[in-house]
C-alpha cells in the first residue's frame, strides 16, 4: 500500500467516524442545540468526504449552502421558538423501541443490499467499476482513472491529470518484449474551445498584428501535442502504463510494442480509445448546467423564487383591519 493510499484510507475513516458520531448525536441528543451542533459535524464531514471523492466544487457548495445557510436558519429557528430555560426538555422524543427496531431492520436491509453478505467476494458494484475491454487482434486494452482500479469509459471524463492504460498481450507475443509505449495525442477537434475563440482579437491592435496572432493561434491548434509514456512489460499478462501530467484536453491514444528485433506499428482498437481530462469538477458542472440540464436549472430558479415569496408571505406579521 502506498503512502498516499494510506492517507486516503485514514482520512476516510476519520471523517466517516465523525459523520456517524454526528448523525447518532442528532438522533439521540436530548438537547436541541446539541443536535444542531452534531448536525454541523455531519455536514462538515460530508464536505470532507466530497473532497475525498474529488468533487471539490460540491464540497465548497456543501460548506457554503448547508453550513452557512441551512444550519444557520435551523439555529435561528431554535432560538426564535424556545425560551432558553426550556432547552433541556425541548427535544423530547417519543420513547420508540418500535421505531428503533424498524430503523435497525432498515439499516440491516440496506447493508445486505449493498454488500454481498452471504458470500463475500466479487459483487455487483465491481461490474460497474471494472473497465471496459477494447480488443484489436490478439491484444486487449483498458483505461482506468488515476487510482488504477476504477474504469474509465471510452470517451469518459477524468478529473485528475493522470490516467492508467492497461495493455494485455498474449503469451507468445511477449517474448523479447522490451518496452510498451503509449502515445496520447491531444485531439484538437474535441477540445472544447480552440485557441482562436479563446483569444478574441484585441480591437486596439493593428490589422497586421491581429493577422499574426491568428496565424500563431492556428499553428498551435494545427499541431496537437502528443505525449509518450513507456513501461517495461510486467510478468503478468497485462501491463499498466501510467500517463502522467496530462493537460486539460481530450486525448486519443495508441500503443507500440518495442522488442529486441524491432518495433510494432502503432496499434489500438478501432475508433481509437479516448478520454477527456478536466481539472476539477467546477467547469464540467457549469457546462452541464448550461447545456443538458438547462431546463431543470431554470425550473429550480423558479422554485427558489416561489420559496422566497412563500417564506416571506408565511413569516409576515398579520395586519389587523
Amino acid at each position, binding site marked *: 500500500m502506498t503512502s498516499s493510499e494510506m492517507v486516503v484510507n485514514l482520512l476516510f475513516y476519520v471523517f466517516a467516524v465523525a459523520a*456517524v458520531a454526528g448523525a447518532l448525536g442528532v438522533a439521540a441528543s436530548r438537547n436541541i442545540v446539541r443536535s444542531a451542533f452534531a448536525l454541523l459535524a455531519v455536514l462538515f464531514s460530508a464536505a470532507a468526504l466530497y473532497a475525498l471523492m474529488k468533487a471539490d466544487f460540491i464540497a465548497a457548495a456543501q460548506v457554503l449552502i448547508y453550513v452557512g445557510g441551512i444550519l444557520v436558519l435551523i439555529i435561528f429557528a431554535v432560538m426564535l421558538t424556545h425560551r432558553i430555560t426550556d432547552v433541556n426538555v425541548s427535544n423530547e422524543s417519543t420513547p420508540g423501541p418500535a421505531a428503533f427496531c424498524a430503523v435497525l431492520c432498515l439499516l440491516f436491509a440496506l447493508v445486505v443490499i449493498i454488500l454481498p453478505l452471504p458470500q463475500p467476494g466479487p459483487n455487483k*458494484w465491481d461490474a460497474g467499476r471494472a473497465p471496459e475491454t477494447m480488443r484489436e487482434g490478439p491484444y486487449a486494452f483498458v483505461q482506468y482513472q488515476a487510482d488504477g482500479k476504477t474504469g474509465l469509459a471510452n470517451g469518459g471524463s477524468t478529473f485528475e491529470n493522470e490516467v492508467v492504460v492497461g495493455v494485455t498481450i498474449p503469451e507468445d507475443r511477449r517474448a523479447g518484449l522490451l518496452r510498451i509505449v503509449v502515445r496520447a495525442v491531444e485531439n484538437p477537434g474535441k477540445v472544447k474551445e480552440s485557441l482562436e475563440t479563446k483569444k478574441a482579437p484585441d480591437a486596439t491592435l493593428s490589422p497586421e498584428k491581429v493577422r499574426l496572432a491568428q496565424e500563431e493561434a492556428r499553428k498551435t491548434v494545427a499541431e496537437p501535442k502528443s505525449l509518450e509514456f513507456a513501461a517495461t512489460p510486467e510478468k503478468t499478462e497485462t501491463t499498466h502504463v501510467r500517463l502522467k501530467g496530462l493537460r486539460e484536453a481530450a486525448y486519443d491514444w495508441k500503443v507500440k510494442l518495442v522488442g529486441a528485433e524491432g518495433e510494432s506499428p502503432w496499434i489500438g482498437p478501432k475508433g481509437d480509445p479516448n478520454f477527456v481530462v478536466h481539472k476539477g469538477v467546477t467547469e*464540467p458542472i457549469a457546462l452541464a448546467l448550461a447545456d443538458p440540464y438547462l431546463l431543470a436549472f431554470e425550473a429550480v430558479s423558479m422554485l427558489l423564487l416561489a420559496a422566497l415569496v412563500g*417564506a416571506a408571505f408565511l413569516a409576515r406579521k398579520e395586519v389587523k383591519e
Partner: protein
Amino acid sequence: MKFTDHPLEHMLVLSAILFCAGVYTILTRKNAVSILMGVELVLNAANINFVAFSQYTRIGGIHGNVFVIFVLLLAAAEAAVALAIIIGIYQNFGRVDVDQADQMKD
C-alpha cells in the same frame, strides 16, 4: 477492509447509516425543527450516494455531481419554507410540536 480497495461499498454503507439516523430522527421527534434536521440527514445521505456513484463507477462523468447541486438548492428552498411554517405555528400555538398542530382536522 481497506477503503481504497472498495471505495463505493464504504461510501454506500456510510450513507446508509446516515440515512437510518435521519429516518430515526424523523420518526421519534415531536419538535418540528428536529424533524427538519432529520430530513437534512437523509438528503445528505442521498448526496453522498450520488457523488460516490459518479466517482467510483466506469460511466460516472459529471451527472451525479450536477444532481447534488439540485438537491442542495431544493434543500435550501425547503428549509426556508419549513422554517417560515415553523415560525407561523409557534406564533399560533406557542409550541412547535408537530402533534399539536392538528387544527385542520376540526
